[in-house]
């Protein structure tokens, strides 16, 4: 821009490449471990170059899991996917409905509903661990998909984003729909939701990642292997005596757990950035 000396031109590249190395190195190491035999990993220092056992390790991770775990990554991928989709789709659906009511109707409890949703921002699951656990257990939802998903599907962020968007929709459209004989729900389904594709996509990316990466809640309410998510499985694989850890299989599972959310970010990068900066600012 202003200075043009060579050093000034090269330095930014140098710093950025260095940062990428710091970010990628730990992941590379995990990848490398997931392609070697256990003996190679245990013989410090582990080779940094990938080995020849990629298919074998990933095959074992996907179909069997480690000896101590009793759940295959295939089952856990399924559980993580159900949880992530349940949370993200659930959040989007109930937020769209609630925001539609708050923006397009006038009713006595409107302000109350908005503030109620707003206050949930201040009650993350981490501060109400035990009592929420009790509610789920009283409802008989321990070890169930409903138990994994339901307490997570409130989203003040989604309501804020949709509200901002709905307020920008010209009111004449709602009026015109009404004159054409369409009821509010028809307007919602045929006009409003299709118009909201962009914010919905943005929310989906953010909330899918959020759902996929949930840890504390599944840790509390799942005890049966059948309901383990990938992250819980990884923790359990590593939570045995250090000498018994099957590193290659555990690291293969770790990589599998990273892949879906990372792909979502890379493939939907524009929606992702929009979702992050527009809702949270």
């Amino acid at each position, binding site marked *: *821009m202003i*200075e043009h000396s060579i050093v000034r031109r090269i330095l*930014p590249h140098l710093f*950025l490449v260095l*940062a*990428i190395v710091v*970010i990628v*190195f*730990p*992941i590379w190491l*995990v990848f490398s471990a997931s392609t070697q035999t256990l003996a190679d990993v*245990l013989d*410090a220092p*582990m080779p*940094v170059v990938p080995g020849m056992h990629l298919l074998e390790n990933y095959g074992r991770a996907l179909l069997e899991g480690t000896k101590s775990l009793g759940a295959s990554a295939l089952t856990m991928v399924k559980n993580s996917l159900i949880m992530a989709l349940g949370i993200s789709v659930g959040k989007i659906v*109930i937020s769209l409905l*609630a925001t*539609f*009511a708050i923006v*397009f*109707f006038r009713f006595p409890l409107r302000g109350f*509903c908005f503030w*109620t*949703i*707003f206050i*949930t921002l201040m009650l993350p699951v*981490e*501060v*109400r661990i*035990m*009592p*929420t656990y009790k*509610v789920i257990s009283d409802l008989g939802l321990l070890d169930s998909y409903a138990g994994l998903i339901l*307490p997570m599907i*409130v989203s003040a962020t989604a*309501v804020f984003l949709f509200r901002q968007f709905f307020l920008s929709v010209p*009111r*004449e459209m709602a*009026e015109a729909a009404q004159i054409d004989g369409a009821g509010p729900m028809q307007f919602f389904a045929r006009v409003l939701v299709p118009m909201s594709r962009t914010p919905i996509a943005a929310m989906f990316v953010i909330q899918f*990642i959020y759902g996929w*990466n949930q*840890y*504390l809640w599944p840790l*509390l309410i799942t005890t049966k292997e059948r309901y383990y998510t990938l*992250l819980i499985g990884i*923790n359990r694989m590593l939570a045995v005596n*250090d000498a018994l850890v099957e*590193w290659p299989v555990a*690291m293969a599972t*770790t990589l599998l757990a*990273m892949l879906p*959310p*990372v792909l*979502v970010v*890379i493939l939907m990068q524009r929606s*992702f*950035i929009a979702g*992050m900066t527009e809702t*949270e*600012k």
Partner: protein
Amino acid sequence: MAKQYEFSARGLPYLLVLPQMIVVFLFFFWPAAQAMWQSLFIQDAFGLSLTFVGMENYAKLFQDPLYLDSLVRSFVYAGFVALIAMSVALFLAVQANRRIRGALFYKTMLVWPYAVATLVAGVLWMFMFNPNIGVLSYLLFKRFGVEWNYLLNGSQAFLLVTLAASWKQISYNFVFFVAGLQNVPASLVEASAIDGAGPGKRFWRIVFPLLSPTTFYLLVMNLVYAFFETFPIIHQVTQGGPGQATTMLVYKVYRDGVFNLDLGSSSAQSVVLMALVISLTILQFRFVERRVTY
């Protein structure tokens, strides 16, 4: 707000907000109220009877050296995580925001780690620094003679979880700083360059003050992240140990509630944490302009 067209229907809006309201009351308000209520009682050893003790759980908590230690530790930890994650991200955002070749590639490469789960961040760092087989702990010992064992050495454990937590948060901060930098008018920076301000002066006098809303917003978000969302790292890497070295507040609530089954104390701790989130949220809304008023 101008008078806007609105649908008229009596029951419909209530039906529409109903699912949201059920979930909020069942899983947010009721448990939060329970925590406040239970923090006023002591449960006997068999969980059969409750005795009302008023503020005694809180009084005990703030006289408990272990709790106070965890409180101080959590603040120091959160401060370091915010400082490291934000300063590294800002530095990188400034570099990536220059007109350089491959800026888009760099941005993509620095953004995607946002999708890495906090638990996975913990696993990555734990694997690199595993005392027996970790590549970096091996290097530390062979090259620098550092005996690295975070399972025995409290400071090393604290350092490790701090670095893992910061590593994970850099991408998030980077996205916001890049967005913030793009809103800094180039004309302003160029004008000050013409006036003879060097690059350092231009950054600190012009760019940094203009970024302050982003910086402040991120500061709050980073503190919230470090306090509440890094539980998986602690749980995975150190389990709060060795000793108390990495027992942060959320981990302590979890341990006291789930394993020690001390309901009164755990509830009181939850309420303290609630107060902390509420103050951070209020701080943010007071100082960062956000259009949520009705």
